[in-house]
């Protein structure tokens, strides 16, 4: 079965909804997680095709989740799109992600980019 899951890890209700809509429009199944600790647990259970990752999260920081994705063998193929309001943070982790968006991230940007990724696989 084709992996079509997109995990949207973002604590802001509105933004997480918008990101989810964008990824749905790009053809993904989406799941929203608004808490770092919950995301940490969820990543032990599933290996999504793509993760939209905010760096500022409650309980467990985005950087911890990023290193979990990059070191956990089952998650090796996961594509990460970092979405952060902090350009410095974005700079720091730019190399570990497929793409880093510094907020504002527009609906169409995210939709078009992730759609291209989905079609490339």
């Amino acid at each position, binding site marked *: 079965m084709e992996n079509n899951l997109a995990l949207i890890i973002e604590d*802001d209700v*509105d*933004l997480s*909804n*918008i*990101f989810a*809509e*964008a990824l749905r*429009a790009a053809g993904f199944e989406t799941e929203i997680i608004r808490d770092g600790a919950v995301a940490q647990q969820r990543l032990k259970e599933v290996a999504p095709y793509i993760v939209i990752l905010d760096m500022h999260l409650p309980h467990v920081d985005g950087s911890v989740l990023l290193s979990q994705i990059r070191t956990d063998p089952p998650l090796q193929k996961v594509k990460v799109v970092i979405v952060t*309001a*902090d*350009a*410095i943070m974005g*700079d720091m982790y*730019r*190399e570990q992600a497929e793409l*880093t968006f510094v*907020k*504002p*991230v*527009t*609906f*169409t940007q995210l*939709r078009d980019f992730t759609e291209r990724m989905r079609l490339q696989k």
Partner: protein
Amino acid sequence: MKSIREILDRILATRATDPDDARRRRLLNILMLGMFTSGFVGALVIIVDAVTLKGLGGAGSQLLLPTAVIIMIGTAVLYYINRYSGRWAAFLFLLLLTVAFSFSDTPDQLANGRSLFVYTFPIAISSLILFPIASFIFAAISSAIIAGLATSVQVVPNLPAIIGFFMLALVSWLSARGLEQALKDLRVINTNLDQLVSERTKALSESLTREMIEAGRSEAILNSIADGVIVFDTNWKSTLANPAIVNLLEIPFSGIVERGIDDLLKPERISAKDRGMLLAMLERPGQIGESFKMEWGKKTLSVNAAQVYDSAGAQIGTVAVFRDFTREAEVERMKSTFVAVVSHELRTPLNAIMGYAEMLKESVYGPINEKQSGATDRVMANTQHLLDLVSELLDQAQIEAGKLKIRVAPFAPAELIDAVHGVMDKIAADKNLAFTSEIDPDLPEQMNGDSYRLRQILINLVNNAVKFTGKGGIHIRFFRRDAAHWGISVRDTGDGIPKDEIPHIFETFRQVDGTTTRQYGGIGLGLSIVKQLVGLMQGEIAVESELGSGSTFTILFPLNNANK
């Protein structure tokens, strides 16, 4: 010997202030001393003679002792008078001498014989101890005396002797006058010389005083300024410092002056990075910038440096001026933090507004009619405007705080251009503008640089070009300038920039004129940020523009930009 001379000098000394008067009185004193001494010796001889040889006998010898005593008393009295009036003493002396001579021999011998010559003495001396012309007075007195004596012994007065007296008076007068004139001239010369010497001395002391005042003033200025000043010589030894530096560096004065720079910049006082920067700044003032800020203990100090040259143009040292920047640095940090937090907090809700508007526009929630679509366009445009402002502020705050880092990594120019097209194509197309690009073939496919910041720069420049271009288009070109440089140019066919505005367009918060802000959006930070980013990447940006036919922004980077 010396004491006898001193005693003599004291006896002969006079109180006269006029040099001529003093000389005459002294001469009179010498004569009287001689007279007194001869009187004394004479009296002594007479007494000894009378006691041992029972006397020579005769009336003459009986008169000798009183004469000697009278001479001694007379000279003593005259000496006393001479202390008050040289004129009177000299006149009385000469008069008494003449009179005394007149009783020293028989009248005929005095008038016409062997003792005639004694009168020459007062005549000659008078011009010296009285005044030059006085010799004639005594010539006349002497002539009268010998004439009187001759008459009393009934002989003819000796006319040749009288003529001789006057001849002698003439010679005395002339020679005394010549002597006095010579002495006067000498005195004038001396006085002139003295005056010259005293003038020179005065001038010298005045110039010395002036110099001291001048030096004192400079020192007072140096000591009173609030900035700390250290002057280093060419061997980097501190030669001069002011009191303010003691408080600023919190090192006692003795620890600052006459110390090598390494001694001053001990590792516990300053970080290795700041130390390196400071040394670089001191060695080449002006290269790092006008001033440089460093951490010194709990303080932030701003440092300025300048090289010191002597009048011949040779470098004799470097002066470093330190200023307490702690408060300003704190305010700057607070400002940056405030701007960063506010911008950050503004972005998230703005992003949400943008997102929902886009979704409406993209019919995610179902089809919308034309008016609704137009309204969402307005919502999106205004939100975008607000987001741009916030982004500019945030970037500026980060650059000012020095937090923005350049990350150099390999990148492909083609991919960079694609990314810019991805963002800008639609924006350009919305204004019916052509947006084209080219990469010169001699540029490597892979280059080193910060592609993220390059993209930011290009989007900024292209976005700017779109804003100010009504028709025509925007063209990006990647090119190779020479062996060591590559560049990017962004050309538009827009309004152009007035010549006098070109030097200012990269300044913070600046647009060509105030009205354009409302017309085109942004708060004038875009180009300033671009320039600062280019600077952080060791590049340079320049602009050429002609009103009405467009502008070209050209950025040049060193080709071997692998330095991190």
